[in-house]
């Protein structure tokens, strides 16, 4: 129970610690914008080219750019969470934090806030770029965008929490997972193509992943002008389950790290 006691002050302290770090390092800020911009420009021009041909893309302007933007929310949200966690390991500061009165739930809350901050720094300029270069205004999706965003960020936090648990348990040896874990979802969540193109048996896997509902919902909105509330509700349900499972796994991995002495060898 005590692990669940909550102090907003301690969460603010950890957010400030990360904010000080970001503020002091322009390469870190640049890095947040660099890849999303590069990806947007590349895929945006591809979309421009195929839309000049006849067919689906001609009628569904923005589907590819929309997919790129939403995928980046999912991926960068998790990366923002995981990198904020990794910064403590790189700085050899994890011992100080684990020995302080900071509860796991506060640590996770601070990492969630930092993932949002990092995401905003990266994604707002990219969304403006999409308007300027390709005339695609993701903000015009309004409430639908808010629902898409909420679902995607929930998934990204769940993955971030699980990866943080793996890092606590296995140290920096598990660092690669922070960068690559989300790509495991890429083919199955059907970011760039509809679920119907998957083999029938693989569609069950796809529908078990919350982001699949968001990408299907986005395609329905952009091609058929229909907001699929049913898909969003299902996504929230799956996200709830995923978040609970990730939090449980994190606490178990933390317990296991204490048992195996990993917290005093986290740099190895």
């Amino acid at each position, binding site marked *: 129970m*005590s692990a669940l006691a909550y102090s907003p002050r301690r969460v603010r302290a950890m957010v400030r610690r990360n904010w000080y*770090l970001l503020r*002091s390092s322009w390469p870190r800020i640049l890095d947040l914008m660099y890849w999303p911009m590069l990806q947007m420009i590349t895929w945006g021009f591809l979309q421009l080219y195929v839309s000049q041909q006849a067919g689906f893309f001609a009628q569904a302007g923005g589907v590819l750019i929309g997919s790129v933007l939403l995928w980046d929310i999912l991926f960068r949200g998790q990366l923002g969470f995981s990198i904020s966690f990794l910064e403590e390991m790189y700085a*050899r500061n994890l011992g*100080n*934090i684990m*020995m302080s009165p900071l*509860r796991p739930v506060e640590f996770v809350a601070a990492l969630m806030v930092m993932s949002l901050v990092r995401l905003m720094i990266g994604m707002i300029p990219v969304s403006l770029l999409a308007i300027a270069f390709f005339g695609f205004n993701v903000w015009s999706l309004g409430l639908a965008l808010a629902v898409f965003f909420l679902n995607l960020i929930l998934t990204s936090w769940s993955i971030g929490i699980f990866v943080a648990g793996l890092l606590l348990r296995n140290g920096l040896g598990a660092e690669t997972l922070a960068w690559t874990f989300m790509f495991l979802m890429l083919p199955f969540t059907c970011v760039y193509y509809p679920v119907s193109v998957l083999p029938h048996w693989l569609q069950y896997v796809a529908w078990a992943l919350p982001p699949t509902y968001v990408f299907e919902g986005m395609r329905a909105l952009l091609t058929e002008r229909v907001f699929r509330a049913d898909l969003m509700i299902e996504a929230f349900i799956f996200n709830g389950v995923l978040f609970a499972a990730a939090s449980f796994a994190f606490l178990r991995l933390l317990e296991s790290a*204490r*048992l195996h002495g990993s917290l005093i060898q986290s740099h190895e």
Partner: protein
Amino acid sequence: MDARLQNAITLERVSKNYKGVTAVDGVSFALPRGSITALLGGNGAGKTTTIAMIMGLVTPTSGSVHVLGAAMPQERYQVLHRMNFESPYVDLPTRLTVRQNLSVFAQLYGIEDIDARIAALASDLNLTEFLDKWTGKLSSGQKTRVSLAKALLNRPEVLLLDEPTASLDPDTADWVRGHLETFRRSFNATILLASHNMNEVERLAERVIIMKKGKIEDDDTPQRLLSRYGREDLEEVFLDVARGRKREVAQ
């Protein structure tokens, strides 16, 4: 009154195994409140694991650890705000200024008047001129003092120190020892100190626990250890224990 509540730190038959390797083997000791104790031992003696179990970072395989009456690690959140530590094996973030680092940890430890506390500590530890410098730009001696400032932020009732003067010049090291003695006297703090500097141990510690291969080899006051081993200084006592000459010499 329960001895676990009376004492600041109580270990009862504590053991820790890592994949079949015994790091700590049936260790028991109790540290009264307000005492300074040194934990000595060569590499692999089990000091770090013992301290990590006291901090709640490692769960014992068997036995029990109590700090200020709380079972570690299960009840650690009841007492972590009353403890602190300093170790050369952890760092403060280098891209934050000294003031930012101390301010973050002051918030984590629930300090009320943060600016005043940081100013007082900076003055005590000669850090005032470095407060707005990046921590990573400081010399190792200055960093050690910043880590010590972080460890004293919450005026801990239990202070765990791992080589607190390792990178300090003799003059500053001596001054830090004096500061630790004053801190202990002023706040009746309990200090557990792991050190390889025998002068430091002789000056600060009123009790010495010597570990070898995960077990306590000896546990006494520095004076009684010197007298029992017939030695002039603790370094010779340490070498006697480390090289297995304990029994012959002590007998």
